[in-house]
Every structure is written in structure tokens, then in C-alpha cells.
């Protein structure tokens, strides 16, 4: 009757064991489930909280916030309705050169700075059609156009305390009253007869305006200066070559890697006196971590491009600095490209993210670099946590994380008197200055980049002040696959691409991410596109009047609606063939870029117009 009696002992034991195993695993799973539900740390990347305050609907600096996320929390425009996005209003800047700036929006006014002659416009967003509230003409020196390597661009203004700060091509920083457009102060920082210009967007940190110079192609000595925002006086100035006292390397300097340690490396890693014309300018992006109280900025290429003229590591060019914003004293430095061979400036955007690395949350700075790697560094110490390729690279094989050294491929190193062929990536790199954006919703970094390779022949460069100091003939062309641009969605936790969209022309515009799960970017033909942030599927596009190389923004207008704004006007280094009317028969025109985009003249003409988009009004 009772079945157990008939079963032998073994079966009994087996059944009991099995039953207990099931019971135990059920208990365990419950336990784990509870643990998971209680686990506080998310296993995904988030922007540094202190550096990315909640979105107030304005766009007060080109990077959106100090963490440089370029992400808008506005979600009125989303994947469901973006197909209805249409032009709300436009504005012609009157300057038809490359428009690399990001418009700023603060308190119902939009501020746009144009390429040379660097006019600053304030548009009144409260009135229909956004008429000009005021305009300011800095009147920079016309001859500055002769020492601007890559079109007369300007990457945007900065807003703080009721003032707007702009840089001019001829090396001045100007503070203007935001309400009236009246000039408050003007400080001259650069000398065009040394080849210095300024094209970067300033950043205001703790009452100081941070400004860096341009001119690495002109034998300029690079620096980063802090001006007092109220008076324009220089608070501190940090050079990026030369003795430690000039570079502001002192007792606080604690680099992670041995190769960055030593006395006066800014002198000893150069031939005698070469550091005086050595480059290391700061024409790109600066981020700030209020919690650690550190600013992060990159330094550009060493001069000249011909590496055989400057044996040595060429400190402190081609690397990333962390500095104290009050004094400029360096905290750490990591040289991304010691003895740079390919004009790989290290001035791209530095996105401050907290992300899990090997199970532990780390405070990091993420940088999609010119040389084709996405670098993740610990932003407190400068340790390289990972460096993974996001594009085709054959000129280097990888970064040794223990020593921080980038291993170069000897066969692809430039040599005087020889043409070295098929070097990837090119001099402008896998990605140049045009910034990526990060969406905390998807955890992806949206990188607008290129797929180009080059032939390079080094020649002897002669330094003549006020003329370019280069020493290389370059010819660029499409890389493997034949496409020249790509938008990649990079997962910094998984360290791999989630998806990518290939483009015919190189991408030279920035990207914007929004909480509507959209990524906006523009092509050099003039298409302004919105793609799904999770899949990359193109959801909307609009053909503007000229190629787009600027930075799109999203803001909440005075009427509470979401607007997306971008400047349209091709140019910059990539679009030089159009703005300069260059001749494509010469493959080395525009340092080789013309050869890569010889068809651009047929696809875009010059322009300089602001486009602002919104969903159709319900009224």
C-alpha cells in the first residue's frame, strides 16, 4: 500500500537528496532575489552627480554641464513623435564660414557666436521669430585669418553671472553684459605674429574664465589661462611645455605612471629650446568635477608634425591634465601620445562618468581619443582603466595598462624622405574635436567619428614666426569599407559598440542625446538627423542649407515647449575645400583633407544659418 516500503534504500536516499537540493536552491534564489532587490549600486554608467545637476531646460555652456554629457532631460520630443519635428524659426548669421559653435540658451535668450569676425548675437526667444535683442562686434584683427589652421571657427560662448564670455580669433577674451550686449572687459591673451589664435569655447569655473590658445601648427607654445570673470585679469597661466615652474607642476603633482614623473620634463624631453615652439595648445574641451575640485583638459599636438625634428617624449603635449581650478597647479597628467607621430591632439571632450570597472564603481573620465581608442581613466589618479579601439587602427597596437605606454607600429612611423602609406587613423584622427554625448537612460556614449586613412611624407619644417611649422605632406582617403563617417554608440561598461550607423561623408558635427531616447547629429551635406538612441534607426531627417559641423542643443523655450537648435554652415578643417574654394587636383590641399572629401563641393555650399526645430504647435 505505502509505496515507500517497496522502494529500496538507494532510491529513498536519492529522492531525499533531490528534494533537499531543490528546496535549498529555492531558498537560495529567494535570498539572492532579495539581495538583488536590495543592492544599491547600479551596474551601469552614470554622469558624475556633482558635475551634472538636474536639467533646468537651459543650455548655459556648450557641453551642457561640467560633466560634458551634452544630454537633455527634455522628453517632449521622443521616438514616437520626432517624425513630426519641423522648423520653428531660422536665423542667418551673415557669416558663411564653418559653424562649429553650440548656441547657448539662458533665461529666454539665445546666444550665438559666429566664426571670424566673431559676432555675438542675442536672440529674444520670448518674441515670435526670435528677433535679435542685441549684437556685439568685437572687431578682431583681419590678419588673424592668416594664422588660423582650420577655418576661422569658434566653438561657442560661455554664460555665467549675467555675463557672456567669448574668445576672438585674434586672441582676445571679451566679457559682455548678457542683458544689453555692452562690453565689460576685454583681455588680449594671444599674439597673431607668433601664430596664436583662440577658437575654443571658454569655460567658467568658480568665478574664473578658463581660456586656452590655438596654434600647434604654427610653433606656438601652448597654455591655459584663468581670467577673473569680474575683471578679466589673469589669475594664473599654465604653459604646457617648458620648466615645471611654467607648467605649474609642484608639490601637488602626483601622476599615476612613472613615465610622467621627473623634474622639468617639459624641457628635458625636447631638443634644446624646441619646447619654446613646441605646441601643446588647449583648443578643445575642459570638464570640471566639483566634488574632487579638479578641472580636466587635454593638450594638443607637439610642433612640428615631423617627429624626427623633436626626439624625446615631448612633454606635456598630447596628454590629459587634471589641475586645481583656483591655482592651476597640476594634480596628475597622462600622456596619451608620447612623441606624437600623427598630429593626434589630445584635446577631445572628457566625459565625467561613474562606472563599474571590474565590479567596483570608479570615478572616471571617458575620452574618445584621436588615435582611435576610447580611454577610461580614473579621474582622481590618472590611471588608465581601459583603452579600447572604436575605429580602424593600424598605427598602434594598444595601451599597456601597467605602464600606460601606447605601443606604436614601427612600419607606420613617418620617415623623412619616404612616403609611408595607408596609416590609420589619419591626422584628424578617428574623431576630431566634435564632441560625443552620453545618455544615462541607455548608458551609451554617442561618438560621431570618421573612417579615413592617409599617406604621409615627412619633410624638414622651418620655423618662421607667423607661418605654419609643420613638415609633413599628407594625403587622406576613405578607410576600409569605403565609408568616411560613422556614428557609434559605445557602451563604456561593456567596452564595446552597441550599434553604429555608417555615413558617406566624415562626421564633423557633435551629437546631442535627449531623454526622449533620441540622438541628434548633422552630416557634412546638411542633413540634420534624429536616430533612436537604443537601436540607431533613423527616425527623422531634415536638409538644412549647408553642411552641419556644429553642436546641436535642446532647450525649453519660454512657452514650455522643447526646441532643438543647430547651426548649419560647412567648414572647419573637414570642409576647407568648400569655404576656401580649394582645388581638389592637389591631393595635399588642406593638409590632405581635400583628397578625402573631393566631392564635397558638389554636396554642399557655404552657409551660416541657425535652425531651430520643434513639434508642431497645438494651437
Amino acid at each position, binding site marked *: 500500500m505505502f509505496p515507500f516500503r517497496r522502494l529500496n534504500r538507494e532510491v529513498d536516499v536519492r529522492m531525499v537528496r533531490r528534494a533537499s537540493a531543490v528546496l535549498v536552491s529555492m531558498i537560495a534564489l529567494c535570498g539572492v532575489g532579495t539581495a538583488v532587490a536590495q543592492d544599491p549600486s547600479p551596474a551601469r554608467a552614470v554622469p558624475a552627480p556633482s558635475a551634472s545637476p538636474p536639467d533646468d531646460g537651459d543650455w548655459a555652456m556648450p557641453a551642457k554641464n561640467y560633466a560634458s554629457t551634452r544630454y537633455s532631460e527634455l522628453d517632449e520630443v521622443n521616438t514616437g513623435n520626432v517624425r513630426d519635428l519641423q522648423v520653428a524659426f531660422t536665423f542667418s548669421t551673415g557669416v558663411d564660414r564653418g559653424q562649429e559653435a553650440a548656441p547657448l540658451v539662458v533665461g529666454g535668450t539665445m546666444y550665438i557666436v559666429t566664426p571670424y569676425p566673431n559676432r555675438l548675437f542675442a536672440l529674444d526667444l520670448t518674441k515670435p521669430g526670435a528677433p535679435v535683442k542685441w549684437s556685439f562686434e568685437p572687431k578682431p584683427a583681419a590678419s588673424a585669418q592668416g594664422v588660423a589652421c582650420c577655418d576661422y571657427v569658434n566653438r561657442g560662448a560661455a554664460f555665467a553671472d549675467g555675463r557672456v564670455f567669448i574668445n576672438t580669433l585674434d586672441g582676445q577674451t571679451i566679457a559682455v553684459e548678457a542683458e544689453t550686449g555692452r562690453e565689460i572687459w576685454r583681455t588680449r591673451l594671444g599674439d597673431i605674429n607668433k601664430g596664436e589664435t583662440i577658437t575654443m569655447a571658454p569655460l567658467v569655473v568658480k568665478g574664473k574664465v578658463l581660456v586656452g590658445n590655438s596654434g600647434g601648427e604654427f610653433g606656438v607654445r601652448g597654455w591655459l589661462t584663468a581670467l577673473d570673470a569680474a575683471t578679466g585679469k589673469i589669475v594664473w597661466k599654465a604653459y604646457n611645455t617648458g620648466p615645471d615652474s611654467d607648467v605649474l607642476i609642484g608639490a601637488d603633482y602626483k601622476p599615476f605612471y612613472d613615465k610622467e614623473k621627473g623634474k622639468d620634463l617639459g624641457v628635458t624631453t625636447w631638443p634644446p629650446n624646441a619646447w619654446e615652439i613646441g605646441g601643446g595648445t588647449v583648443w578643445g574641451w575642459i570638464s570640471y568635477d566639483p566634488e574632487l575640485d579638479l578641472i580636466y583638459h587635454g593638450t594638443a599636438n607637439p610642433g612640428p608634425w615631423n617627429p624626427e625634428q623633436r626626439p*624625446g617624449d615631448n612633454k606635456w603635449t598630447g596628454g590629459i591634465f587634471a589641475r586645481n581650478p583656483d591655482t592651476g597647479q597640476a594634480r596628475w597628467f597622462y600622456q596619451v601620445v608620447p612623441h606624437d607621430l600623427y598630429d593626434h591632439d589630445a584635446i577631445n571632450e572628457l566625459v565625467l562618468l561613474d562606472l563599474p570597472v571590474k565590479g567596483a564603481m570608479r570615478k572616471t573620465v571617458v575620452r574618445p581619443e584621436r588615435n582611435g581608442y576610447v580611454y577610461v581613466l580614473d579621474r582622481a589618479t590618472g590611471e588608465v582603466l581601459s583603452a579600447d579601439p572604436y575605429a580602424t587602427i593600424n598605427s598602434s597596437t594598444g595601451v599597456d595598462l601597467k605602464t600606460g605606454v601606447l605601443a606604436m607600429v614601427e612600419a607606420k612611423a613617418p620617415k623623412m624622405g619616404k612616403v609611408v602609406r595607408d596609416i590609420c587613423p589619419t591626422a584628424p584622427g578617428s574623431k576630431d574635436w566634435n564632441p560625443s554625448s552620453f545618455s544615462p537612460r541607455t548608458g551609451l556614449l554617442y561618438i560621431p567619428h570618421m573612417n579615413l586613412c592617409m599617406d604621409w611624407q615627412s619633410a624638414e619644417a622651418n620655423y618662421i614666426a607667423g607661418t605654419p611649422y609643420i613638415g609633413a605632406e599628407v594625403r587622406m582617403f576613405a578607410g576600409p569599407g569605403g565609408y568616411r563617417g560613422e556614428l557609434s554608440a559605445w557602451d563604456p561598461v561593456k567596452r564595446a559598440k552597441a550599434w553604429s550607423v555608417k555615413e558617406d561623408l566624415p562626421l564633423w558635427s557633435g551629437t546631442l542625446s535627449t531623454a526622449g531616447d533620441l540622438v541628434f547629429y548633422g552630416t557634412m551635406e546638411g542633413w540634420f538627423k534624429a536616430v533612436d538612441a537604443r537601436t540607431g534607426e533613423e527616425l527623422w531627417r531634415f536638409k538644412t542649407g549647408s553642411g552641419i559641423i556644429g553642436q546641436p542643443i535642446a532647450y525649453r523655450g519660454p512657452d514650455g515647449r522643447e526646441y532643438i537648435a543647430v547651426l548649419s554652415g560647412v567648414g572647419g578643417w573637414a570642409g576647407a575645400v568648400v569655404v576656401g574654394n580649394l582645388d581638389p587636383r592637389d591631393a595635399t590641399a588642406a593638409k590632405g583633407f581635400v583628397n578625402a572629401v573631393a566631392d564635397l563641393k558638389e554636396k554642399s555650399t557655404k552657409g551660416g544659418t541657425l535652425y531651430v526645430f520643434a513639434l508642431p504647435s497645438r494651437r
Partner: protein
Amino acid sequence: MRARAPMALLCIGGLAGCERVRHGVQSALDPAGHQAGRIADLWWLFLAVLAAVYALVLILLLVAAFRPRRRGRVPVGSAFPQEAPTERRLTRVLVAWAVGTTAIILTLTGFSYAVDRDILSLGHRAELTVEITAKQWWWQVKYDDPVPNRSFETANEIRLPVGVPVRVILKAQDVIHSFWVPNLHGKTDLIPGRVNETVIVANREGRFRGQCAEFCGFQHANMALDVVAVPRAEFDAWRESQLAPAVAPSDEQSQEGQRVFLTSACVMCHTIRGTTAASRVGPDLTHIATRPSLAAGTLPYSKGNLAGWIADPQRIKPGSQMPVTGLSADQLQSVLAYLDGLK
């Protein structure tokens, strides 16, 4: 013989010339270095052996030309058997001659090979590296160092420590030149697009003259090089002084001279470290007043020669790349004061 008198005169004249050559600043027969010594030894060996062979051949030729005719006739109908002994002797002589010639050639080849191996064996002992880039029509000289800011550039002059092998890396920028310091070594070409290497060592102190030995254009004849061998301590001191940037002008005229230098055509082509002049078209002038000569050995260095060179280089070295700069007399005097102070 009657021919001997003129020959004697020739020998005496040759010996007199030999004397000059044997103690010259640009003489392969006055070796001051290991390789030049070996090459000179080989040269003398060849000269002796080949002179002896030549003399022998001449003597035999003369003997054959002036030997009296043999009396006696060959009987009719008996040609071959009568001449057999002559023929055998002739064959033996010819064979001996061939064997002797081959032996001499093989011996000379053997010596040549041995010398070749010897002069190339110094490479691994080189302690110093000098890079020479030949340009039309001057020599750009760079002293390398593992620490980048302890390397420096100069022009048209190499200073060596005595007894220390120096690796010379040879590059050219425009056409093929050839590096030849007869007192120290043989010729090595400098070929655009290729890096050649040689090693030289000076075994005694002295000043030697090198020369471009491959026709390279208009002023090939005036492309010389000063090679100065000094004791080690003196070399180290010279090297330290060359590393320093240019001496700052102390008096008013020199200061004016620096100003003229930097605002006129000079700055387009020349480097003076410590100023904003950093062009590489022409020679580095940071320490020009320490050099033995100007314009690649064309003129010995002196303030007057420098003045003549700057005022009208095309009269002295027509076709050279230094143009007539058109400085006024006052400007020229101040520039001279400045340059002459660049020690």
C-alpha cells in the same frame, strides 16, 4: 740609357710633391685615424708591388726591344724539331708568368679583404653618434644624445675626442653627396632617401679637412668640412658650451645687430637658439664664432671674412643658397658685432 735622365727628374719632382702630401690637412697619405692608416698601408703595398711589376715589365720590354738579333739560321725542312726546346722554355715562362700574376692578384685581394674587414669592425665600439645631413652645399651636423635636450646642432664642423670611435650617420636632403675626410677614412655617400653609416676615429690631435666627394652641383668644389680632433677633456668642455643657447648680446651695437638679424632676411633661414630664429634652411649660427671656417670651408673664420660673406656671398660662392641680403653698412656692422660675439 738616354731615357733615364728625364725619368730621374720626374722622380725628384714627384718626391717633392709627396712630401707636401704626406703632411697635409686633407691627405690620405697622412693617416690620422685607424681606418685611414690601414687604407694607407694597403695603398703603399699596392704601390710597391705594382711598381715592382711595372718596372719588371718595362725592363723586359726594353730588353725585348733592344735585344740583338740571333745569328744562325734554321735549316730548311726541319722547322719543328729544332724549335721544340725553345717552345718548351717559352711555355714554362708563360706558365710561370701566369701563376705569378695570379698569385700576386690573389695576395693583393687577400690583403684588401683583410683591410676591408678591419676598417668596418669599429662599429660596435662607437661611443659618440654624429648625424650629418648634407645639403647643397654645406653640412648640417647634429650631435646625438640619449637625453634629447643634450643633443645639439652645428654646421660644417665635427669635433672629435682623440681615440674615441665616432659613428657618423649620413643623410642627404637633395642630391647625392659623399663624405670624405682623407686623413681619417675613405668615402661614404650620402644618398637622399637612405641612411648610411660609417665610423671614424682620430688617433692624434689635429685639424683635418673633409670634402664632398660626389659631384653635387654648382658649388661642389666649395663644400668642405672641418674635422678637429682634441683631447677628451677639451671635447667635453666644447660640447657643454655648444649645448648652451646663444650668448646674449652685451653691448649696444650687438643688441642692434640682434635686432637687425631678427627683422631682416637672416631670420628666414638661420637658427640662433635662445632667440626666435629657428629656421633650418641654412646653418645653425648659435655658436658661429667658434667655428674654424665659413661657408663650408670656403673662407677661414674672421670678422672680415664674415663681413665679405654677408655682404656679397654670390661673389665668393656663386650659386650658393645664401642670397645678397642688402643690409646697409651700419646694419652690417651691427650684425657682425652680434655674430662675432656668438661664442
